[in-house]
């Protein structure tokens, strides 16, 4: 830590007092459920005093740990100004060829042989995680780049999935034909949603998109003649490979490679988009709408483009999802899905591609591997989200734009306050 001399002892003393108070408060709060145990059969009360001790010690320890990390965070922010080691390491990894090239090759090799190293179950989980990577990257265009909070993203995912399922059911359309078309149909739906919400921003936009997501789900649930209602569509064909018949295991491996190619493709496209003209227009739109118009940017076109391009990826993934599970029904497309995808984007880091990838892996794989603690799964999940948001509010890997370094004059501050110092 810092070499800075600080009066450590009184500080620790006050921390101990605060943590003790926290511990006492927790002991008081949990007293009724942790200590008293009433057995209605023998009509006795069992006092479990040891539990009280455990709660106290645990709360004290966690509270102390919490304070320690909060203190470090504050000091870390100070250290960051002259370039924290993490930032320097990060820059080295991304700029030094000797470091990132072998790393990239090793990662590529691992990804390529993954399905042969692990079981079909592991591969299947990985496919799901990769699907969410794609969904996250798609939503990242809308939320991260263009700054339009979309809570109904799952609707486009549903559109893609139902498009393929229905086309396959009625006309026997194959996966490879349906994939680009699913993207296009989802894009059209993106524009359909975009038109009415052009004037909305922030909270209002979030509410309308939330409603849109629910509308699509409710239509699928209730329009039996069209979508077969809650019973869904079964027997959707898996992606074929030149008419060869594959076993289930081979299908999983095949789908895994399809997903890898799709994810790499998405990453390249989104990366290119971000640095393109339209990408810059999105970023400008997110920053300031009026200034954007004063720069001659067509606000309507730019927003619709964001909605359409974001929706396209959801359409692709929807199609792949239908092909993977071979059965879909409306319960796969609830608001919870939108919330998870949005969490991936926010947690990973808005506008950052690597962040979204990492975020998707954490949010999808963590609950999957925590199945062993099934009762506490959502608790751990929630706690880890809170922790990440407290300690890394910009996301696990924040947008690259936040990493510009600049020389700061000691007295100069951002914005208005700096006037006097700079004048």
């Amino acid at each position, binding site marked *: 830590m810092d070499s800075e001399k600080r009066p450590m002892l009184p500080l620790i003393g006050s921390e101990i007092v605060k943590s003790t108070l926290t511990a006492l408060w927790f002991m008081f709060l949990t007293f009724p459920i942790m200590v008293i145990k009433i057995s209605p059969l023998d009509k006795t009360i069992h006092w479990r005093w040891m539990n009280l001790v455990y709660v106290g010690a645990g709360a004290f320890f966690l509270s102390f740990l919490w304070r320690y990390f909060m203190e470090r965070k504050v000091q870390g922010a100070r250290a960051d100004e002259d370039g924290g080691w993490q930032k320097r390491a990060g820059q080295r990894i991304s700029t030094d060829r000797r470091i990132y090239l072998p790393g990239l090759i090793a990662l590529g090799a691992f990804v390529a042989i993954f399905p042969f190293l692990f079981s079909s179950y592991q591969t299947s989980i990985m496919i799901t995680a990769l699907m969410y990577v794609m969904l996250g990257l798609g939503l990242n265009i809308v939320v991260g780049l263009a700054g339009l909070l979309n809570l109904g993203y799952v609707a486009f995912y549903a559109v893609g999935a139902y498009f393929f399922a229905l086309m396959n059911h009625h006309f026997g359309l194959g996966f490879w034909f349906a994939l680009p078309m699913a993207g296009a149909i989802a894009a059209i739906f993106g524009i359909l949603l975009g038109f009415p919400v052009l004037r909305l921003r922030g909270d209002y936009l979030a509410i309308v998109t939330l409603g849109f997501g629910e509308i699509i789900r409710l239509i699928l649930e209730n329009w039996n003649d069209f979508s077969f209602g809650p019973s869904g569509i079964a027997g959707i064909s898996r992606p074929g490979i030149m008419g060869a018949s594959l076993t289930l295991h081979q299908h999983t491996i095949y789908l895994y490679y399809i997903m890898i190619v799709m994810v790499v493709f998405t990453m390249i496209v989104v990366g290119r988009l971000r640095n393109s*003209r339209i990408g*810059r*227009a999105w*970023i*400008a739109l*997110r*920053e*300031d709408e*009026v*200034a954007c*118009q*004063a*720069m*001659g*940017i*067509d*606000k309507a076109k730019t927003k619709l483009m964001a909605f359409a391009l974001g929706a396209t990826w959801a359409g692709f993934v929807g199609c792949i999802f239908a092909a993977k599970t071979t059965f879909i029904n409306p319960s796969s497309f609830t608001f919870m899905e939108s919330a998870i995808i949005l969490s991936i984007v926010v947690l990973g880091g808005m506008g950052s591609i690597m962040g979204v990838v990492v975020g998707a892996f954490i949010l999808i794989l963590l609950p999957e591997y925590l199945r062993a603690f099934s009762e506490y799964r959502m608790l751990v999940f929630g706690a880890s989200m809170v922790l990440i948001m407290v300690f890394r509010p910009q996301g696990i890997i924040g947008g690259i*734009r936040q990493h*510009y370094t*600049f020389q*700061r004059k000691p007295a*100069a501050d*951002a*914005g*208005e306050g*700096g*006037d*006097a*110092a*700079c*004048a």
Partner: protein
Amino acid sequence: MLKVKNLHVYYGGIHALKSVTLELSPGEIVTLIGANGAGKSTSLMSISGIVQARSGEIVFEGVPINAMAPDRIFSLGIVQVPEGRRIFPGLSVTENLDMGAYLRTDRHGIKSDMDYIFTLFPRLAERRHQLGGTLSGGEQQMLAISRGLMSRPKLLLLDEPSLGLAPVLVQLIFATIERINRDNHTTILLVEQNANMALRIAHRGYVMESGSIALQDTAANLLRSEKVKQAYLGIQP
């Protein structure tokens, strides 16, 4: 170059502009002065298309523009530098300038214009990689004007460039506005509260009062006018 005739603008039920008529010739600096709420900014916003006028006409180089979308008006060469600077805080100085040249495709022209801007405002050159939001108020104003220049406008609409700046910086900004006009023959419509400064660099001026034009004259005459002195320059006779 620009003719505004009998312009009426409403914000809901509020009659913000009452029959405003203005005219600008090429190469002029014209200032629009007046008290708070007189309709100065609204006039600019309706010229640049961000606010739609209810009636009246705006003609730019023979083209009626009152019903056009802001981006179309921009592409004709009318650029507004909005009040309160409104730079993009999360983008660097050069990225902000790039946004100003959004509709242009000539890389070399953009590069040379950026160099020209860095000679106008050397301080921006020093801070070219810094994020817009970390600049001081004066630097942000420089950036906002520069961003407007990046599209090589024929008509530059400046909305209160001196707002909230230290006197030294106000001097600098106004000197640069004069220089931009001289170097490129850019026509400038300048909205200001600081009537004294604005009238010193302008050729002509309009005085606005509660939504309509109260006076118009050459800047020199307005500076001498007793009425303007009393109402806007704060000089007691």
